């Protein structure tokens, strides 16, 4: 039986990135750079942020309220006397946590479902497709709001809540529910087109178990689609999280800093000429979402065969060595 190299799909991905020419690579790299920057902020928040996300005093001195950017508070302070810079950095942690959790959940549920459903077909497949289509038809923000609503305070004993905080898990689950249908769809459609391929048929004819066929042959082929989708979903997840925070659902203000909530409080400030409480969280959202989108776009550009440019490598023609006899004979 022909041996498929491990991680063939991912290797292929890497190869394509190397091959791409010009702009798509840069887009990808800039996007990755931005995302990495925020991930670092998120991981090292306790070290990077000057203060805690709800800290209002330092050395017994109360922070000023709604103070403009200064040397003590680089981004100024809010109406609650918290430091905007710190809240923006801690907000990065909240955002990354929610995004990572929701993307992992969505993929962990959506991909296997799509694989299985696409391969097995039949009634199960049709049933799942109906449900997923129905979920897909639900305006995403609505669904997220309703799920966040329902789960408020219900997840307090869930094991992940102790690690991350109930509100973060709630927001992550709300966003997960919205994106599962997308992964399901993409994976299922790809599986359907791939499962009729000769090599898959051959494997089946040779008696490979269903699990092997799906796992070894189809999975690696199909998995290529996922990274691009995952980054675009990550971008959407941040916006959905911010929308939830803005409307007041999901994460409670005492649990964690969240950019959308900060903007909702900042809206009053802007009318009074206090711009720093909203602009910085707003810019953070724009940057991070742009970062993820650039990664997604970059991947798309690189992978989509219809629009990608291959870097054309000039063939290396070794300098002609005319054999001595020939020269002698010409």
């Amino acid at each position: 039986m022909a041996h498929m190299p491990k991680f063939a799909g991912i290797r292929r991905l890497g190869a394509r990135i190397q091959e791409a020419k010009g702009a798509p690579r840069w887009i990808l790299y800039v996007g990755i750079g931005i995302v990495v920057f925020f991930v670092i902020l998120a991981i090292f928040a306790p070290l990077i942020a000057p203060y805690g996300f709800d800290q209002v005093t330092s050395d017994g001195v109360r922070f000023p309220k709604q103070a403009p950017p200064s040397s003590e508070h680089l981004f100024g302070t809010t109406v609650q006397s918290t430091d905007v810079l710190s809240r923006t950095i801690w907000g990065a942690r909240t955002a990354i946590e929610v995004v990572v959790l929701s993307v992992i959940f969505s993929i962990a549920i959506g991909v296997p479902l799509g694989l299985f459903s696409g391969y097995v077909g039949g009634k199960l497949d049709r049933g799942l497709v109906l449900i997923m289509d129905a979920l897909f038809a639900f305006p995403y923000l609505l669904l997220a709001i309703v799920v966040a609503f329902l789960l408020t305070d219900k997840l307090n004993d869930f094991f992940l809540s102790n690690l991350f905080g109930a509100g973060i898990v709630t927001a992550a689950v709300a966003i997960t529910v919205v994106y599962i249908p997308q992964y399901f769809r993409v994976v299922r459609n790809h599986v359907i087109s791939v499962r009729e391929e000769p090599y898959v048929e051959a494997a089946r004819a040779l008696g490979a178990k269903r699990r092997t066929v799906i796992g070894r042959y189809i999975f690696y082929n199909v998995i290529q689609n996922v990274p691009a989708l995952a980054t675009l979903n990550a971008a959407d997840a941040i916006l959905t999280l911010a929308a939830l925070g803005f409307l007041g659902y999901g994460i409670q203000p005492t649990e964690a800093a969240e950019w959308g909530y900060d903007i909702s409080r900042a809206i009053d400030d802007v009318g009074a000429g206090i711009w720093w409480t909203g602009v910085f969280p707003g810019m953070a959202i724009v940057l991070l979402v742009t970062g993820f989108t650039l990664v997604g776009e970059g991947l798309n550009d690189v992978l989509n065969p219809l629009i990608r440019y291959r870097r054309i490598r000039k063939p290396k023609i070794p300098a002609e060595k005319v054999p001595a006899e020939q020269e002698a004979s010409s």
Partner: protein
Amino acid sequence: MSRKGSLRTYVLTRLVLAIPTVLILLTMVFLLMRVAPGNPIQVALGGHLSQQEIDRRSAEAGYDKPILTQYVEYLGDVFTGNLGTTLTDHRTVTSIIVENGSATLELTIAAMLVALVVGLTIGILAGRFRDTPIDLGGRLFGIVVYAAPVFFVGYLLQLLFGSTLGWLPTSGRVGPVTEYELDTTTHLYLIDSLISGNFNAFEDTVLHLILPAVTLGLLVSGVLIRLVRVNLMQTMRGDYVEAARARGVRERRVVLEHAFRNALIPVVTVAGLQFAILLGGAILTEQTFNWPGLGSELVRYLNERDYIAVQGIITVFALAVVLVSLMIDLINAFIDPRVRY
């Protein structure tokens, strides 16, 4: 099979398939609202009356009938078009859909127009001048405009055009006095004002529509730009385009007449799918601009736990998306014979 037959089959199949989707949606909506904690009386009078009194009033109002009974009643009501009366302010859900739905409709249509104009223009330019600063600039614009939270952009626009410059109004569909004087037959104020010859109201409506439509439209244009660009690039590689070039057709005509038209087809599909984004963005835009549409009513009723209202509104939203995607599928099937069953 004849071409007509397969189209008919497709249409019928699609329609039939839509029904279980609708049923599933309705069931989901019902379950979601029943599982939600609290009821409207708790929200309104908690903290002012004893819990016993609240429980007593809740029981009397029938909030604790068995779920199955409520479900069957709910389904029956929806199919007879009776979406109920709200619990918190005694409005019929139908009137909410008609009055506030028209507001959302006006907003989304206007926003879609903005999105199409901006999205198509920049998308075509970006696709045509691929990998040049125009392309990069256009793509970046599309990305950033989608990344910026619509509620913040909206408020900045309010501040700039409403407050600082004073050019445009910042809330509502019309000014308070005009609203009272306007005859609302269709509840689409642009049309109503024209019908009743109230040009003052027409002007007022247009002015009030500008900021929210631009805010929401820009958001959606971000997505359109990328789509149009990608599709344009794909079709521009196509053989028939090469053939046109080989025939010596000028590049501009190649783009606009050959590539563009075909690039438009998938865009129509995705434009339909953007409807879901449009509705989601509408919720936030309506909140910011005090636009009395279904989105802002939904948030309000959700906060008040008026599950009859929320149920009705979510049902309409979901049905609208199903309807739009159904229409898109049918249009696609009509245009593209490959799509049919």
